[in-house]
């Protein structure tokens, strides 16, 4: 699969588990606000609850940015519920947990490992038009950081609003002065 930037989410309809209830979610639900699709390999694994819990801890901040979180695994919505029943961390999750047992979403975003029926740890930030503006895909065991994800959402929103005519001011005290470079083509 090639570059995913600016790919628009294709039509889908999947079951989901959110706040103790089952519901259906389609591509239309992802539009009109910023969204994060947060793929993980499977329920009842170890790294996943820490990642999902980290995300749950920052959920309010994502909401303050007008961004909705959708976690996705290849389990059914019934398994999501069973996991929530069994785990305090998962029970505390307020965002929507999508169920993708047929691999529709994981295949669409290129993160499905077909022979294992599990998704790689892929994170996709979609703008309100449902287009991918940033993404990362980790191998199974490599966890992600919700704070870093929040920073990326903020950066994506910023660029959408202000264009790409700005740079992040990530200077460090004590850095050496940069060697000068002169590029005045067309300016004199």
């Amino acid at each position, binding site marked *: 699969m090639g570059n995913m930037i600016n790919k628009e989410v294709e039509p889908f309809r999947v079951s989901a588990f959110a706040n103790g209830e089952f519901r259906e979610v389609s591509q239309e639900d992802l539009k009109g606000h910023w969204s994060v699709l947060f793929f993980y390999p499977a329920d009842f694994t170890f790294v996943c609850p820490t990642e999902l819990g980290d995300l749950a801890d920052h959920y309010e901040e994502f909401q303050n940015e007008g961004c909705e979180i959708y976690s996705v695994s290849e389990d059914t919505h019934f398994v999501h519920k069973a996991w929530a029943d069994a785990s305090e961390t998962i029970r505390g999750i307020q965002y929507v947990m999508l169920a993708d047992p047929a691999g529709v979403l994981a295949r669409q975003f290129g993160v499905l490992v077909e022979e294992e029926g599990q998704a790689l740890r892929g994170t996709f930030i979609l703008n309100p038009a449902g287009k991918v503006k940033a993404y990362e895909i980790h191998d199974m065991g490599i966890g992600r950081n919700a704070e870093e994800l929040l920073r990326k959402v903020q950066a994506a929103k910023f660029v959408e609003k202000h264009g790409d005519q700005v740079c992040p001011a990530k200077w460090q005290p004590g850095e050496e*002065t940069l060697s000068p470079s002169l590029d005045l083509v067309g300016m004199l």
Partner: protein
Amino acid sequence: MDSEKISAKSSLITADLEEQLCGVLGKLTGEAHMVCVVNLADKASVEMAELVRHIARLSDKLTCQFYEPKEAKEELPEIDSSLLPATALYRQGQYTGISFHGVTGGKEMNSLVLALYNVAGPGQEMDKRIRKKLDKLERKSEMKIFVSLSCHHCANQVIACQQMAAVSKMVEARMIDARLYPHLAQQYKIERIPMTIINDDEVLLGVKTIEQMYDILKVYK
């Protein structure tokens, strides 16, 4: 101050860059004077002082002078000597409203060279219609442009603001390297650059055209 201590050979200017600089500075038609306020116990001040002295010796149209902060506070109140190194450009003895706080390394070398080109002449072209508009500004405005030396967008914003200052007495444009003054970065909540703060009131992010900036400046009366 004892400016003899300041070397006229800046380690930031390579032989290639010197050749490029000579090419641009050779086009100058008038004169410009660089005034540099420095504390020679500070590394950035020494770097900027040497850079200014080196550039000045590349053209007979350029001169430079160095001050200690205490001297500058008394003799040159128009320069903010609290942010060192501070370098201001003068034309015929008058402050042009163009100044640099920090070392003009990285992309900001473009800003300094074009500022000299605009002050000494011939200067960059400017649409006559915009030039007339700038002549109508009623109140003096100050623009602080916070930059990072590695940001090419920043240099474009500094160049545009300082081009306005070069033609209008009502505009002051100060480049500020945010890295060197973390208290200001904190005060103005600078997380992205270029950030331009007009009259400590209006905040602009990114690169704006001269016309866009004029539309903001004209409101101040």
